């Protein structure tokens, strides 16, 4: 596996996340530890857990020697070649953690040649290319730790697995999504013997290790009395239900339904209780909060309760069958549930689902099909992160290549002929759904062109491709606030500007929701 190719991505456009991470380098380098979580020089304040801050601090030391201006706190939006090359190189270097972890997976696996495909697919995942190497984050590194932890669980070293997961949590708290599965599995498989006795020494050693990790991480801040500040940075509940670009989950579907209902109500004049704030919310450009016009509004507590309830179903199943396979499936499903029902979910979080799901992809045909649908829809849902035409070709071609090289050999290994009529219908429906993605991409890429030419009427083209195209006004903004899209056509055109994004979101949400249901059923019905 050569990271040479990724180096070519140095020249791609830089997102806000790039500046975010540069700013963190500056914060951790030039400020004392007591001020890390208080600094507001830039709008991109430090909102990752302390281990990540330590990590940035370590990275900032070589950065200082390469170019002093990188770590200058007031040098906002610094985009010189030195900082670009340095930051992108750190991503490639830290991704080696992932590389080593997936290589270790091959050793000792039941079917090394299949595992080799899965490992390669993980290391070369288009999600990492899009989110890490072009958009800019350190997901390769993080998922390296996660996979390492899962590997430890596979090899029976549950203590190390738990410790690594605790470390991971202190790098990035989004992995809380998966924490319930870890908690149940470690408790059941490690701390309780098969015949139901509690193994106290084991429990204590596990608890000690986890506590030690947390002390290392937040201890200094606890001593300085900064815990509330830290927590308020980590868990900002001031944001809305949906991210600016709707992450394709259940709420995207609900929001779309709400918009459709609103349109229907306005057209037919049916007397529905329309929330005025909701109506204005649909036309506002930037979304602070999504307010439904027709449907009842959703509060953070609701999403929280729904998530916990659904997760508990899988956790009960995991408690009963505390095996490694069951654990990985439950882990995936916990992450999936949070993604589907969470509050203000970011589309990048789909990697939390796709990565552990990859490990299951070669189990049998059902898992493989789920993996296929979730991967295609999930990767496609990441495409709007890259918006310039130059990057479009890269993401498309790379993803196609990945799909071919992963899907074809895996399919050959696990293929099963559909035996019953419903399964045949299902098979064809799913294939039709997958075949819709090229059309969707065609629509998304041609839409700006068609809109700018007066000959084409947007509504007719949109209506033929997208079922929900009757929604003319919506609340989309660009994926990132600093993005300047193409100069938009005046007047009614600007309202249509975000239609491709919305269609993408809804179409992917359909697939991801279906994959979620599929996976749940497969898991709960498995022996």
């Amino acid at each position: 596996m050569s990271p040479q190719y990724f180096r070519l991505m140095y020249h791609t456009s830089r997102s806000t996340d790039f500046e975010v991470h540069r700013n963190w380098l500056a914060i951790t380098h030039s400020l004392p530890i007591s001020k890390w979580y208080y600094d507001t020089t830039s709008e991109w304040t430090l909102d990752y857990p302390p281990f990540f801050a330590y990590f940035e601090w370590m990275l900032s030391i070589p950065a200082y020697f390469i170019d002093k201006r990188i770590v200058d706190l007031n040098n906002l939006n610094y985009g010189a070649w030195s900082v670009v090359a340095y930051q992108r190189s750190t991503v490639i270097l830290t991704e080696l953690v992932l590389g080593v972890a997936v290589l270790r997976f091959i050793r000792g696996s039941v079917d090394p040649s299949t595992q080799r495909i899965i490992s390669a697919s993980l290391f070369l995942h288009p999600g990492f290319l899009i989110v890490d190497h072009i958009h800019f984050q350190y997901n390769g590194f993080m998922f390296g730790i996660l996979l390492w932890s899962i590997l430890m669980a596979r090899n029976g070293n549950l203590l190390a697995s738990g410790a690594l997961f605790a470390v991971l949590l202190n790098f990035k708290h989004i992995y809380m999504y998966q924490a319930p599965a870890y908690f149940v599995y470690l408790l059941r498989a490690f701390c309780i013997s098969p015949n139901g006795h509690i193994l106290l020494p084991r429990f204590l050693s596990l608890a000690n290790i986890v506590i030690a990790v947390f002390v290392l991480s937040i201890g200094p801040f606890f001593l300085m009395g900064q815990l509330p500040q830290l927590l308020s940075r980590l868990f900002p509940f001031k944001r809305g239900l949906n991210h600016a670009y709707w992450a394709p989950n259940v709420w995207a579907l609900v929001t779309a339904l709400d918009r459709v209902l609103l349109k229907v109500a306005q057209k037919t004049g049916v007397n529905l209780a329309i929330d005025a704030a909701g109506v204005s919310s649909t036309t506002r450009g930037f979304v602070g909060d999504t307010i439904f016009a027709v449907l009842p509004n959703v509060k953070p507590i609701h999403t929280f309760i729904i998530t916990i309830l659904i997760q508990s179903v899988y956790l009960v199943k995991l408690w009963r069958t505390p095996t490694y396979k069951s654990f990985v499936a439950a882990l995936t499903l916990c992450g999936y549930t949070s993604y589907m029902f969470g509050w203000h979910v970011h589309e990048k979080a789909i990697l939390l689902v796709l990565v552990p799901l990859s490990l299951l992809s070669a189990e049998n045909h059902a898992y493989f099909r789920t993996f296929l649908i979730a991967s295609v829809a999930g990767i496609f849902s990441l495409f709007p992160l890259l918006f310039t035409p130059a990057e479009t070709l890269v993401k498309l071609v790379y993803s196609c290549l990945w799909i071919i090289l992963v899907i074809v050999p895996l399919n050959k290994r696990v293929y099963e002929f559909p035996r019953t009529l419903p399964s045949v219908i299902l098979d064809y429906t799913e294939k039709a759904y997958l075949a819709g993605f090229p059309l969707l991409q065609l629509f998304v890429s041609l839409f700006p062109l068609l809109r700018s030419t007066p000959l084409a009427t947007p509504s007719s083209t949109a209506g033929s491709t997208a079922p929900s195209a009757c929604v003319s006004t919506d609340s989309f903004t660009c994926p990132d606030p600093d993005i300047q899209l193409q100069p938009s056509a005046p007047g009614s055109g600007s309202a249509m500007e975000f239609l491709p994004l919305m269609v993408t979101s809804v179409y992917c949400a359909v697939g991801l929701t279906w994959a979620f249901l599929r996976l749940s059923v497969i898991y709960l019905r498995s022996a």
Partner: protein
Amino acid sequence: MADLPEHGSFDGLLNRKHMSRRLSYQSQNSTKSLGPHVGRVVQSLRPQASSGSIRTVPDSDAESEIHSPIPRRHLLLQTDTKHWLKPPPLSPSSSRAVSPLSTPQTNSFTTLPKIPKKSRRGSALSFSSLKEFEDRTQERRASLRPSTINTTTDDDEREGGAGKRWIRWMHKHGMKHWVVPCTILASVCVKWSTGLGSYSGAGTPPMFGDYEAQRHWMEITTHLPIRKWYTYDLPYWGLDYPPLTAYHSWLFGILGNWINPEWFALDKSRGIESPTSKVYMRFTVLASDLLVYVPALLLFLRAWHGSRSRRTQNIALLALLFQPSLILIDSGHFQYNSVMLGLTLLSMNFLATGHDLLAAVCFVLSLGFKQMALYYAPAIGSYLLGKCLHLEYKSGIRLFLRLGATTLFTFYILFLPFLPPFASISSILEPISRIFPFGRGLFEDKVANFWCASNVVFKWRQYASTDVLVKCSAALTALGFLPSVVGLILGSFNTRVSSGGGKKEEDIMQNPTLPLLPYALLTSSMSFFLFSFQVHEKTILLPLLPITLLLSGAASNSSAFEWGVLVNNVAVFSMWPLLKKDGLGLQYVALTVLWNWIIGANPLRFRGSYSFIGLLSAAVYTAIATLHLLELVLSPPARYPDLFPVLNVLVSTPVFVLTWLWSIKRGIEVSWALGGVGLRTKQKGDPAGPSTKKD
């Protein structure tokens, strides 16, 4: 049950046990499924069918007790002879060309197989088959020394670059049909990613660079009448390529105008560097590449490597598609070399398949796209001339006339807008004078050719005027490509078809000198690069094409492979000053490493072979690494600001000169193998060599 007696009459006595088995056997086969009537028909046929198979069992044995039923035998088992153990002859409909060397070789390794002197239809003698032979003799030599056996086989298993391992994996997992699409997709990805970077003359007003030149041509060709194309505002990147480039620019200009007129507005769009226009320009390069160069490569594999295995062809494709220099210049620096190279390659393919007229058309188109294709002209021209000589007297003349007419006609079509029916005859002078500028100096930037390298010690321009130098360079160039021309013409003259041999012109697909062609192309283009006038560092792409073609099918321990890798790497290195200026340093490193990784060449490892090329490579790579390190650490002294480019030239030029010499040497070797150099062979009546005599 009623059928039972009939069985008895046929098979002799059956005891009860076998009777039942027999019955079930029989019924399984036919009776049960087909009904009684059909069953009887089958049985009536059966004696006839099995009579052949039981010939060894005479009728007298029918009396004896047979303890087992006579098994039905497969057709193959029924025959006494074991001829089916031998591989079947390749059918004429097979996609693989029959290589004349492959059959005799399997029987006689030791004797050098004599290649049939007269080419026959279907005996496509490609350089790959010659190479195959070379590999085998090498293998044999290696196997004579028992100590080396293990090391070589181990090397084969472990080594094989990433590309080879990937292809092996794909084939093992039943995905061999995906190899070519995936390779092309991956190359598109790499080319496009290279294109994300900087380009020639980015952000350097007022003149910018090659990128702006190409864009400017799209601008003027779409907005001006044809007559003004070669005359409009010449100081600002006036059009100085032949008409096909102009037509190509015009097409893409029209397409671009349709998408966004701002990109190519006349005069107003000068120096436009908006991201979308850059994307469009990169797209035009990629599209031209995909439309011309990639199909030409695929055809090349069929035409020239047709006798090799599918895997070898795939590996060759990988090596050709990811060639770093071409990607860097086309997708990075910004030019359309792949179109010119692709057209030449197409012409080569047509030569290999015997379509000489089409080959001539393609080559003229290549010339019409970029005059640089002239570097290949001596080789292609003398090959075609050789073919005319090779043929029988009359048909030779006829072919010559047809070739001449085709060539002239194609040129006429290309220059049609500047020629009599549409314009006065004098107007042709405008494009011609633009295309061949003799007013410029001997060489421009630091380029790794003979003139620039020797200029370090011998200041040519102080001793001689431009005129003399032009003549000198022309003479040296001609001397440089003379060996290839002589080889091609003599080779085909020696093997000419005697009149009255009963051979029709249509029977003769290709010249026997076809395997010489790549070497001749290399010799000719390299001599132009080294000795001719006004050479750019980018021109090294022309010699690179034939040597990469030679490399593409070669085994990783053959000399062609080692030379190919060395020349490719040195060529990229020789363009380093240019790439550095363009801001393509990162791509330079990434693509070179990627290509070496794919084909499995490791410059850092000394192979331990004390052959000339091994030692040379080690020395050159050391020098390159040292130079790069020095450049990184030191800044050049004020007295010699060009110190590093000059050192670069001094490292690269010897390698290119040696390559040129190597290509001549190989050319002589190959023509020797084809039937002697200038030695009119006495065994003319004995075309079959010692090896074929055996059969």
